[in-house]
């Protein structure tokens, strides 16, 4: 995909013999709001660290803006064009808001004064307050602002709403949407808060045990996946071949529930062919897609 801002293929990384990433494939289209989902420990933060150049991959390829993340010079150019918010939202504890703005500004010749002023006002960040005296929500906003104000084409956010109260979450999501629509910034964020992702993302990828299990446009996924509830005339004695796409088939007496990842029509037809069957079809939420695709303990 030529207009993919982030392109990852076959990415592998192990820590002390344990595989954190086992061949990850991922493409983030330009201008999208991309939700990167997974359970804790599935490999989200490792992926982000690899994109940022904090760690090096054991194998595979990762490119941002078409540049390889594994090379130092390319890495510097990548970081000049992106903004980053870390999981901990930690900044220098001895600086004030104003100081860190001045500090960061020095690294980016294309600093946008207009955006700095706008967000300083909008986020209500007191310029002379020391960073440790800011709440986590305000630190998150500050870090976001540092990325936006240098005109980043891509924002890489590691669990941006983690630890935030509902008001701060709403503000953060709203600003992400606003910056995406006004500047065309691509937004790549990891989360395990499915509701937020469902709200603002147009593309997602679900990672489980170091590999992508689902990825693509959220609308398309929701259109394809369905939940079928079948009530049969009599209990099934022999197992039924429901067909491709039928997953997580659960049976309880004369009721059968199927999660269809595709071919819902064919599966429904198959169901209706059974004696006395009535079929109900329900749309699925992102939560159901997620739970159906990641393996539990």
């Amino acid at each position: 995909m030529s207009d993919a801002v982030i392109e990852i293929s076959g990415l592998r990384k192990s820590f002390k013999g344990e595989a954190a990433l086992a061949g990850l494939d991922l493409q983030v289209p330009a201008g999208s709001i991309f939700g990167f989902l997974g359970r804790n420990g599935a490999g989200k933060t490792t992926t982000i660290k690899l994109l940022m150049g904090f760690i090096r991959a054991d194998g595979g390829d990762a490119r941002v803006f078409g540049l390889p993340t594994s090379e130092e010079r390319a890495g510097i150019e990548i970081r000049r064009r992106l903004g980053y918010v870390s999981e901990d939202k930690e900044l220098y504890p001895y600086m004030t808001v104003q100081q860190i703005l001045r500090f960061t500004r020095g690294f980016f010749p294309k600093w946008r004064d207009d955006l700095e002023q706008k967000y300083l006002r909008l986020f209500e960040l007191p310029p002379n307050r020391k960073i440790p005296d800011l709440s986590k929500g305000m630190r998150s906003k500050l870090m976001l602002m540092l990325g936006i104000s240098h005109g980043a084409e891509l924002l890489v956010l590691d669990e941006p709403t983690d630890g935030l109260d509902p008001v701060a979450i709403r503000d953060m999501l709203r600003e992400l949407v606003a910056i995406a629509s006004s500047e065309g910034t691509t937004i790549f964020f990891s989360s395990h808060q499915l509701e937020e992702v469902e709200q603002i993302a147009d593309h997602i990828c679900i990672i489980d045990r170091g590999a992508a299990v689902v990825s693509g446009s959220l609308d398309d996924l929701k259109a394809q996946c369905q939940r079928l509830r079948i009530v049969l005339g009599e209990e099934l004695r022999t197992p039924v071949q429901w067909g491709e796409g039928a997953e997580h088939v659960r049976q309880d007496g004369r009721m059968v529930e199927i999660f269809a990842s595709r071919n819902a029509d064919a599966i429904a037809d198959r169901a209706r062919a059974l004696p006395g069957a009535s079929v109900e079809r329900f749309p699925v939420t992102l939560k159901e897609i997620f739970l159906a695709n990641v393996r539990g303990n």
Partner: protein
Amino acid sequence: MLWFKGWLETRLRALFGIGMCLFFILLVNRHATPPAATGQRALGTFAFVWAILPSMTGLAGAGVRTQPAFQAIKGQHGSMYFTLSLPVSRMRILATRAMLGWIETTALIAFVCGTAWAVVPGLRTNVPVAGVAAYFLTVSGCVSGFYFLSVLFATFLDAQWLPFAGMISVAALAWSLPKLSSLPFLNVFQAMALSSPLFTHIIPWASVAASVGTAVILLLVAGVVLQRREY
């Protein structure tokens, strides 16, 4: 920009420098003027102190004392992630921090030398300005080796005190091992004491060069270590 940050990190270290200065002054005052025998011994001991204390101050300048400079532990000082997310090479981050600390180390040495010379009457009458300057150059050259050693340790030892412990251990080892002491031009402690310009009126260039050369190598090694490190 990194300089500005470093400065903010080290403002409080001046107190430490003043303390050290007082110590040196008291020491010198008590032992009158060189080349009194007790003065020589005292200076020898102080050479060891020279090796360690300015480096600690300087390291604080490199951000190591108040917060581990290159540490990125979750929940404490994960600010290294922010630094690494900026469009700067790791070498530049290291070099800026290390050089700032080195400047502070050298400034401290200059301050101590200069103030002691100005304050202690015995020194002022017996040692010309050129002599103090030569002494300062010798000491700062010799101390550089130790300073950059602790910088190297700081790139991979994450606890706050480990780089100091490492550096002090190596310094103590160098001071006490007779073999090392016997190679005259390598013994930096000697260079800062008996062989120092205070007594010989010439700068022990071999020792200074050896120390500075080692310092450069250590800085480069630190750069490589930091480059390869995973956060």
